């Protein structure tokens, strides 16, 4: 039954089907027959959250347990939120349509820093007190995981506990502990203390943070002797054997990534120095091509999707890619299923590979060059040479492609205006290349799109010490880039510098930012990932109200000795390694070979018993 209150408002909002569940493969259980109820919350709109693979995996995994019921919850869009508040409808789970206020767990996935205010808004809509200390009961336990949990300090005051690393095992262990706690009537304090003994669980309220007069951290100290001084992340050692869902919830309304997804590997062997994912998911592990082919068949069969994407951080680095494509091509072609391969690298994009993906349907090609000059690409350890970019584009053009998208970043450490000009020059060379090819596609012009993001220094990367460029400088660089582009065949788009500045503050922030995030939410921030809802002024005002300086977090160079807010979290890339990489980048302009060529001693090998590659 749909609650009457909800019936009243659903026809007054855009795309009501996103608020009502009932999709194919959504899991509905009998509330009387389950003993743990979990709300898996994605702090963004349905169309974004439903595209996220991690949520699909954990949703299926939790629900594979007969006594647990995990439901999906997304941030309502502004029109729906207004109606919910007007009619006093608390945030509810899409499967049962019950308010999540008294669920056992409210789980958030932290995919990007700009979603933090959405978390507060969702807790508020759920009528749950925002601050962990104001929630006295054993339930709901508000927990969070995902990439941003590697520096969860800015939201530490709101969340009871964080999952570090991969969730397939630790999430279940924690739920088992909770079942025991509930049966034995534990207090919340007792539960959290016991939880902190599980590897991969970080309970921020069990640590005290003290600061130096200059605002940097003096120490992070556990409050109880049994609480670990350093919490180590969890990984799945044997990825080939890990749980993988045999179906996905198939939405009615269209979402951002509306397709089946196949996770072919975790981690990345490249070590690009700006890339957080490249470090926090180490070491690289992959799945056997037979396992993947079976997963893929099963998913396409259970969802009816006509597209499947092979996802990973660097798909063309997957050793068994040719075998996997050979396995998958016959049946995907027969069933008219399109295969897409995001995250291809320019240095190993072969003609054979292109022909294989083009057999089904031709889509656009995107390559990440990241920086405009060889010098800067070496600094960031993007081991890509200009000749390789050109060779790849030639292959693509000769294969009939006429548009190429190139990704860059600006504001990278050691960057000069020469490097910015290099971006435009590289794009121009690609245009010139197109017209120099005798057998280029006829009757069509070439289109080269430059997409330029602002660099945000992130924890657990060799650039975690680096200042972000000031917004003034970023704006200047953007203008300069536009002035360097001479051809109409080249289009330029870039990220908003304000967003990147706020992201930089939050990414390397400490616990004092919890007050800023709350103040900003009270001023009206709730979906900051969306341009139409984002107002940087709210953040500037909130920082000022709390007496904090954004520049301290975003634009300050840290010494190698400084204690970072996340130093008590262990992602198994050692600080010495990060310092070494930072030095090599800035002082020697040298690159580091990738993991298969030579181990660079980051420390992640201890997670797999000493050797990353058999």
């Amino acid at each position, binding site marked *: 039954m749909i609650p009457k209150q909800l019936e009243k408002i*659903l026809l007054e909002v855009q*795309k009501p*089907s996103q608020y*009502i569940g009932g*999709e*194919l493969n959504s899991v509905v259980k009998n509330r009387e027959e389950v003993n743990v109820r979990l709300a898996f919350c994605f702090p963004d709109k349905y169309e974004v959250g439903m595209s996220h693979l991690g949520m699909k995996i954990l949703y299926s995994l939790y629900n594979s347990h007969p006594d647990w019921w995990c439901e999906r919850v997304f941030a309502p869009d502004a029109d729906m939120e207004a109606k919910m508040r007007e009619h006093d409808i608390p945030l509810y789970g899409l499967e049962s349509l019950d308010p999540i206020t008294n669920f056992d767990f409210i789980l958030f996935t932290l995919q990007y820093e700009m979603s933090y205010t959405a978390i507060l808004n969702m807790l508020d809509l759920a009528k749950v007190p925002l601050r962990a200390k104001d929630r006295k009961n054993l339930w709901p336990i508000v927990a969070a995981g995902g990439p941003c949990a590697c520096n969860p300090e800015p939201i530490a005051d709101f969340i009871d506990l964080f999952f570090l690393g991969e969730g397939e095992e630790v999430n279940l262990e924690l739920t088992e502990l909770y079942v025991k706690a509930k049966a034995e009537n534990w207090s919340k304090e007792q539960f959290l203390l016991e939880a902190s003994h599980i590897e991969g669980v970080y309970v921020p309220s069990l640590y005290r943070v003290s600061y130096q007069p200059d605002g940097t951290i003096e120490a992070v100290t556990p409050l109880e002797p049994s609480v670990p001084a350093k919490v180590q992340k969890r990984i799945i050692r044997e990825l080939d054997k890990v749980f993988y869902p045999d179906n996905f919830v198939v939405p009615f309304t269209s979402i951002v990534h509306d397709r089946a997804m196949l996770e072919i590997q975790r981690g990345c062997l490249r070590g690009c120095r700006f890339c957080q994912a490249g470090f926090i998911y180490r070491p690289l592990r992959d799945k056997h091509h037979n396992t993947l082919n079976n997963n893929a068949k099963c998913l396409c069969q259970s969802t009816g999707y006509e597209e499947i994407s092979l996802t990973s951080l660097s798909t063309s680095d997957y050793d068994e890619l040719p075998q996997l494509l050979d396995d998958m091509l016959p049946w995907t072609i027969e069933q*008219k299923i399109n295969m897409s391969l995001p995250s291809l690298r320019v240095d190993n994009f072969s003609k054979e590979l292109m022909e294989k993906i083009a057999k089904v349907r031709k889509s656009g090609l995107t390559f990440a060059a990241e920086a405009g000059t060889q010098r800067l690409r070496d600094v960031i350890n993007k081991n890509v040479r200009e000749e390789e970019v050109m060779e790849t584009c030639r292959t693509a053009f000769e294969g009939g492609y006429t548009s190429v998208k190139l990704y860059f970043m600006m504001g990278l450490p050691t960057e000069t205006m020469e490097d910015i000009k290099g971006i435009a020059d590289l794009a121009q060379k690609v245009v010139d290349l197109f017209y120099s090819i005798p057998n280029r596609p006829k009757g069509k012009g070439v289109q080269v799109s430059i997409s330029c993001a602002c660099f945000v220094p992130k924890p657990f990367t060799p650039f975690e010490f680096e200042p972000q460029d000031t917004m003034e400088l970023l704006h200047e660089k953007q203008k300069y880039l536009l002035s360097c582009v001479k051809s109409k065949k080249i289009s330029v788009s870039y990220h908003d510098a304000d967003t990147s500045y706020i992201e930089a503050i939050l990414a390397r922030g400490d616990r004092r930012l919890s007050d800023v995030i709350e103040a900003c939410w009270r001023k009206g921030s709730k979906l900051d990932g969306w341009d139409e809802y984002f107002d940087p002024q709210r953040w500037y005002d909130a920082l000022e109200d709390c007496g904090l300086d954004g520049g301290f977090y975003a634009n300050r160079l840290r010494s190698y000795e400084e204690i970072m807010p996340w130093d008590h979290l262990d992602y198994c890339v050692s600080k010495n390694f990060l310092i070494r990489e930072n030095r090599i980048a800035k002082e020697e302009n040298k690159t580091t070979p990738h993991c298969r060529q030579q181990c660079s001693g980051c420390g992640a090998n201890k997670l797999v018993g000493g050797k990353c590659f058999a």
Partner: protein
Amino acid sequence: MRKIRVFFTKLGRAKYISHLDSNRCWQRAIKRSGLPVWYTEGFNPHMYLTFPLPLSLGYESRYECVDLRLLEDIPDEQVTARLNDSLPPDIRVFRCAEPVMDQKEIAWADYDILLCCENGEALSRTLNDYFEQDEIKVWKKTKKAPKEIDLKPHFQVLEQALCSEGVKLTLRCTTSIEVNINPSLLLDNFPGKEQIETVSTCRTMVYTGKMEQFV
């Protein structure tokens, strides 16, 4: 190749699926069912499906249909079963058969409408006054410019009764490929609509001009 007409219900949560989304939902369900359906042979082949009567967002229905073409001969009962295995729970197929009538023959549809309100008797009286006018002129949006039409010849009240929630109506409205009169059009122009708290509408049957059940 064999033409087949699939009859189904769209109830409960499924009423919030728009026509466009419903179409996609069917495509995927058919794909999952593995039924050998015919694809168009253009540059971008797509599954050939036709819905004679799009259902408005927010309406339930006990009598929807979709036409498709099968490349192999599969018994009707099996088609029904395989589709039901593949569709979301609130869309259910109850019959499949060779189409008898042309979609163009559709002329009328019946709707059960529940009007929830405080005072059913008062609402019922205002409804009577509204329905009994000699003509009911309203502006109807069309593909070109809005057009004024008289609704009077396009609907009949088959039943009007009080119930615990308010008033229950059964309406028969003109429903064809050329002119489609939606019960909402009638109610949106009803002067007493302020009295109505919520409206639930369910299409219950579709007829031809000769008042035969559309099959």
